[in-house]
């Protein structure tokens, strides 16, 4: 009788837990982008990805996997969470390695430079709610709790997110109940990414090669613990310094961190130093001082993808069996980006030609053409004029003169792109990404 009751009670508890865990997915975070980057990694073929890029917004506003796929056919996953703390990076690495043990791990040094060892509950949820229950998850909860001073309720909400998110019952996130989500291979974006351009900015980044700073003990120990893990588990790691503006003090921290990791034998790719090689333009490629927009991201992906291809031998897997989902996702993704970018941007043929200053005018006579005029650009062999009437940019025409006449249009937006011909191919310079509209 006692055993029967015990079994009965255990069955009840199990049923209760199943019920709770089954429904809590409808309430949790509801942030599609984090689900795409963290949760959807598990749906990738095990041990197939070329690389996994771990960090914070200094990753996902820079690297878009499907742009990398579009450029080189390489599968580099964006495994990042907003405001990622240093403490979280190790747990993210451990989790990712469960399904992708042999991938190259790109670690953003810029994430480390914030020296943030505490992980707020909001940030912790972004990550923990997307990974399955495991010892790593429990250790992550315990680790975050120790560093950040979580209460028992905080720990309970990490284990059972419904404790925090149950209040959403009257506004359940529609995508959570809609059914299986195919994701965008961690390349999702928001409106700012595709349409925002930074307004107020310094002309160029100041690079402080010789800056140094003292790393707090807590941060240093956390980084060293991370490196110890990489040593013990023979993790193939490449640290990356993103081309983000940083004050001298922050660059000092990054220099110290770079020294710390390179002293331990790990390579570090300094993209802040290579800002010119990336042909990044503060006027057009950044949505704010810390993050790239779609134009900058395309350049970044082009450069980094090429670097990885050349240094790590990643092969082009486009059209290969087993990678159909990437091909399909890339096609859809690039269709989504098309309204915001010019066709040549993804072709990679860019050069350092200044942005033309141009004017669009139309005479008052109906039937007359729309004329675009500009000043000549040094080094340009010609100028391509693009027009946007609705969603998408389309080529209007090309000329080697300083004006172009288009048929009369009422509400088109124009931009002018200088190009230089090198080895029989056109290489495009800087341009006004927003364009000028005819009023």
């Amino acid at each position, binding site marked *: 009788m006692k055993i029967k009751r015990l079994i009965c009670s255990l069955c009840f508890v199990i049923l209760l837990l199943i*019920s*709770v865990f089954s429904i809590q997915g409808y309430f949790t975070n509801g942030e599609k982008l984090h689900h795409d980057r963290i949760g959807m990694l598990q749906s990738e073929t095990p041990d197939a990805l070329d690389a996994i890029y771990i960090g914070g917004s200094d990753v996902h506003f820079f690297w878009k996997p499907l742009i990398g796929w579009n450029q080189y056919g390489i599968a580099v996953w964006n495994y990042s969470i907003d405001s990622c703390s240093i403490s979280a990076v190790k747990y993210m690495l451990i989790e990712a390695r469960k399904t992708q043990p042999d991938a190259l791990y790109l670690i953003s040094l810029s994430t480390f430079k914030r020296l943030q060892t505490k992980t707020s*509950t909001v940030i912790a949820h972004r990550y923990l709610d997307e990974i399955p229950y495991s010892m790593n998850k429990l250790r992550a909860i315990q680790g975050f709790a120790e560093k950040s001073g979580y209460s028992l*309720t905080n720990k309970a*909400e990490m284990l059972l997110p419904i404790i925090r998110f149950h209040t959403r019952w009257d506004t359940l996130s529609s995508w959570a109940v809609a059914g299986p989500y195919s994701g965008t291979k961690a390349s999702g974006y928001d409106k700012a990414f595709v349409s925002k351009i930074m307004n107020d900015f310094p002309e160029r980044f100041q690079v402080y090669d010789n800056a140094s700073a003292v790393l707090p003990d807590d941060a240093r120990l956390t980084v060293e613990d991370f490196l110890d893990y990489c040593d013990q588990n023979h993790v193939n790691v490449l640290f990356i310094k993103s081309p983000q503006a940083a004050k001298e003090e922050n660059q000092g921290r990054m220099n110290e961190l770079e020294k710390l990791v390179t002293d331990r034998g790990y390579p570090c790719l300094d993209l802040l130093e290579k800002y010119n090689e990336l042909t990044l333009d503060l006027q057009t490629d950044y949505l704010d001082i810390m993050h790239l927009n779609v134009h900058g991201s395309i350049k970044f992906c082009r450069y980094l993808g090429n670097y990885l291809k050349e240094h790590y031998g990643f092969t082009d897997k486009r059209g290969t069996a087993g990678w159909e989902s990437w091909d399909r996702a890339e096609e859809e993704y690039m269709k989504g980006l098309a309204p915001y970018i010019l066709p040549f941007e993804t072709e990679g043929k860019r050069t350092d030609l200044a942005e033309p200053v141009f004017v669009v005018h139309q005479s008052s006579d109906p039937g007359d053409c729309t004329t675009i005029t500009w000043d000549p650009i040094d080094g340009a062999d010609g100028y391509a004029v693009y027009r946007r009437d609705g969603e998408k940019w389309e080529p209007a025409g090309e000329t080697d003169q300083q004006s172009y006449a288009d048929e009369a249009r009422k509400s088109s937006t124009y931009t002018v792109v200088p190009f230089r011909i090198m080895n029989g191919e056109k290489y495009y310079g800087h341009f006004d990404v927003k364009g000028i509209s005819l009023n």
Partner: protein
Amino acid sequence: MSLASFTFLAFVSAVVLIYFIVPKKVRWIVLLVGSLAFYWMNSRWLVFVLIATGLVTYLFGLWLQRENDRHQQHLQEYPEISREEKKELKAKLKKKNRRILGLGILLVLGSLLFLKYYNFFGDSLNRLMNRVGSSVRVPLLKLLLPLGISFYTLQSISYLTDIYRGKVKADRNPAKFLLFMSFFPQIIQGPIPRHNQLADQLYEGHSFDFQRLCSGAQLMLWGFIKKLVIAERLAIPVGYLYGHFTGYTGPVLLFAAILYGFQLYADFSGGIDIARGVAEILGIRLESNFAQPYYATSIEDFWRRWHITMGSWMKDYVFYPLSLSKAFSNLSKKSRKLFGQFFGKRLPAFLAMFIVYFCVGFWHGANWKYLAYGIWNGSFIMISILLENVYAKARKLLRMDEQTVTWRVFRMIRTLLIVSFGRFFVRSLGLKDAVKMFLRTFQNWNNITFLTNGTLLKTGLSTANWFVLVFSVIILLYVDCKHEHGVSFRKILARQHLVFRWIILIGAVMIVLILGYYGPGYDAASFVYQQF
């Protein structure tokens, strides 16, 4: 640590587990250690105030018992003494014990009065001095109020008085007695137990009983629903309406008062159910503190159903000692001569009642508004007693049958309105605000469409939440209705098929998990009655 928190659940689980693992003989020690640990987690060093109060009560209890035992022993040793001598000895004992009891109550009550009321009276006196232009000032102190002091003080007084009356024998074991004073499920907000009801249950180790575990857990679950789904949800519009009462009049304010009544009931009874559920799991039966108060047909009936243990405490330790005292007996004789049979007979009872409700009011808090609350309730009871004959004549004249449902419903609504008006005094910030709110309730009854014109949606709750609230209050009233007719849902549930039981229980847990107001962002930490 709130009763409706994960920490408390974890704590209870640990205590229950350890309780049933250790040998029966020492299970009371587990409860004692658990209770003191619980008190420490909530009040830290103030646990020593509880221990000191317990020690004083214990020692005075022993003293009283010793006097009683000596008296008995003397009578046994000298059986031949005359009746007059026995009477004389008894009178001496009574006189001495009265002094001991008085001193004991003074010490125990003194700490409550000092810690809870010193600053209140000091501040009131300072304001008065200020008004009359005097520079005399009472220094105000930074005093911390120990958790549950209002409850365990009454427990101490009832214990000493029961020994004095010979109803109970003093506890010989100080540690066991401390357990009686500090038992953790009921220290926060009651119920207020009597020694002869609770002590033996605490000291005797109980065996694990699966049915009790299920029944206790179900009662706790119902308590969580009342507290987290109903009370916490009601707190939002109530808080808004009381905080912005100057923007509302008439029916809206009355509605706010009624809502507050339900919030208070759900909060308080929810906490009591959680406490009783925990105790039941441990094999201990705590008194129920509520008996469907919103089914009361008069204020007197209401106070027999609301905070029952406090009501019965006041009756046994304030009302009866006063009204049966010699002084009141003399008062009764004099008042009959002065005011006639009808009023004269009732005057001492009214005075005793006035004192009782004065105490009830002030017990709730150190503020004049609570005194007004006590007087409000006491006055209505006195009025109903005075007009009893008038009502009876009126009913006869109108040929009204008291047994009809309509008459009962009328009385219930009337009682609800009187109680709700009284609640202005409890919930408002102070007496002035309470009076303002009270008066504004009679103004501008044009806006009776407030229920449908969107007024309520501006009080902080969405439409969906209002639906949940209305539905859950209906369920609460339905359950109370069934209890009023002697139906126990737990017993009915126990008889159902296993699958049905599990569906109901899992559903109830989900209701708390999903619809409960708890967790990060909510301050579910405070029970209203915990402040006492």
